[in-house]
């Protein structure tokens, strides 16, 4: 092609960035295999000790808690996000569509801190929910959502919702409406059309949204840190703690690596499961 000389200009900045990504990844791998020298930031000799340390109960518990948190969050986000995406794509009035889109997107651009802080004010012992329910006489003493898995899941669903809505809406908007019309003209009611046509056709979108929700939740740090308050320990909060409270960067590195491997494994398993479901739905 005659335009080839352009190519170096187009790709060289991104090659440089790719080098940076690869180098930092290799740095993590290298650190994860080095011994921790207490009191020093420089790592010691090569060892596999970091990975055997990870077999301890508290780390195993953090892996389990993180997985549980991600699964619950992904599930609830899908349940909450699907109706929103459906309304966004199918609402007849353009004004309503815009409103739904803007409201569902705003949280995406607020970052974790503003959102988490807002949820602390809602969920706290003296927060909005407890004050309101106490004043209405519905409850006699504040119930705790702070420092619980439930509280973290509520805030994380809110955190993950926008991206899930966008992905589901993209999938729903690409469904051929004629298939639904055909089902209707053959006498299927709306509920039946939804469950036998629309829902199965949106399965690929649901699968993509679910794994993104999982990865997104896995990556969350401020929400489990601030709302979980040490009671809900995730991989991300542990990495930070190990790194900055005990300056054990080799262990933090191996924890990060295992976490990454763990989340890729879960997503792969999950996608395999969904594919099976999809085949099932096709019959």
């Amino acid at each position, binding site marked *: *092609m005659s*335009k080839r000389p*352009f*190519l170096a200009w*187009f*790709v060289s900045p*991104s*090659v440089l*960035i790719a080098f*940076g*990504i*690869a180098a*930092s*990844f290799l*740095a*993590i791998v290298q*650190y994860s295999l080095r011994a921790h020298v207490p009191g020093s*930031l420089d790592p010691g000799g090569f060892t596999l000790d970091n990975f055997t340390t990870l077999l301890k109960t508290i780390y195993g518990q953090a892996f389990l808690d993180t997985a549980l948190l991600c699964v619950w969050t992904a599930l609830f986000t899908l349940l*909450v996000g699907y*109706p*929103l995406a459906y*309304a966004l794509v199918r609402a007849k009035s353009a004004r309503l*569509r*815009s409103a739904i*889109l*803007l409201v*569902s*997107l*705003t*949280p995406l651009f*607020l*970052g974790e*801190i*503003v*959102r988490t*802080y*807002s949820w602390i*004010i*809602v969920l706290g012992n*003296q*927060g*909005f929910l407890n*004050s309101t329910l106490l*004043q209405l006489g519905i409850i006699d003493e504040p119930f705790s959502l702070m420092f619980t898995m439930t509280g973290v899941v509520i805030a994380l669903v809110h955190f993950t919702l926008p991206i899930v809505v966008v992905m589901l809406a*993209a999938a729903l908007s690409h469904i051929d409406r004629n298939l639904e019309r055909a089902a209707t003209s053959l006498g299927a*009611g*709306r*509920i039946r059309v939804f469950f036998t046509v629309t829902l199965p056709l949106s399965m690929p979108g649901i699968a993509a949204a679910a794994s993104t929700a999982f*990865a997104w939740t896995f*990556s969350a*740090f401020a929400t489990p840190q601030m709302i979980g308050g040490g009671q809900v320990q995730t991989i991300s909060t542990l*990495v*930070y703690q190990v*790194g900055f409270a005990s300056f054990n*960067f080799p262990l*933090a590195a191996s924890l*990060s690596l295992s*976490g*990454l491997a763990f*989340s890729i494994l879960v997503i792969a398993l999950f996608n395999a499961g969904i594919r099976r479901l999809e085949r099932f739905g096709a019959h």
Partner: protein
Amino acid sequence: MKKTLLDQVLDWSGRALVAAILGFVMLPFIVVALASFNDSAILSFPPENWSLRWYGNAFGYSDFGDGLLNSLRIAAFGATIALVAGAGFAYALDRYAFPGKAFLNGVLMSPLIIPNFTIGLGLLILSAAAGIPRTMWLVIAVHVIIVLPFVVRSVYVSLRNFDRAYETAAESLGASPRRTLLTVTLPLLLPGLISGGLFAAILSFNEFTASLFVVSQRTQTLPVAMYNYVREYADPTLAAVSVIYVVTVALILLVVHKIFRLEKVLNVE
């Protein structure tokens, strides 16, 4: 066709459900706004006395001002670098075949799967090992890596929807490849480039987790300053900051929506 009773029940319950979900999305922001105007330092609902003192506090706390300036600088540099690199790569991705393309694409997209805390830790370790000081440029580098996939995706989508006939027409009229690129391709891609850059800037402005690993006291961003504030003080100053934040972001989104139509940008039409 007349709607049956069942259809009407479905319609109304669907509307109620969507309204409830939108309420769930808005709830924390409404509550945070109430808290920000509450005179009391202790949270209570409904507020007894109203005041603007937390807004005064927010503006008087220098870490927020410094953090805001840092965040704006980092977002501006980070988004520009990501836009230049990302747009170039998206163009090459769409138009050319070159050795290592798939591999390069994989590496550049990997931050979508690698959690932000791992990216932050990786660059912290790398910079420590290479003796690179923790300056603003390190924070910018982290942000470029994180927002680049989003820019590539957004520019790539515009390139896919691009009508190549304009380029062919320019070339057949004798324009050089460079001239075609500058006078036909770039102007036509401009909306995609602007929205991609804006998206990158907003993401970078909000990035928290990876930044926490690589900032120093001097380079801390606004989200990090906010996080540190919550850990030290329990008063509602942060509610005031949050309200300013929400209103600004909502206004920006509204303007972007008016100009570019978000449905198009996000490909949900």
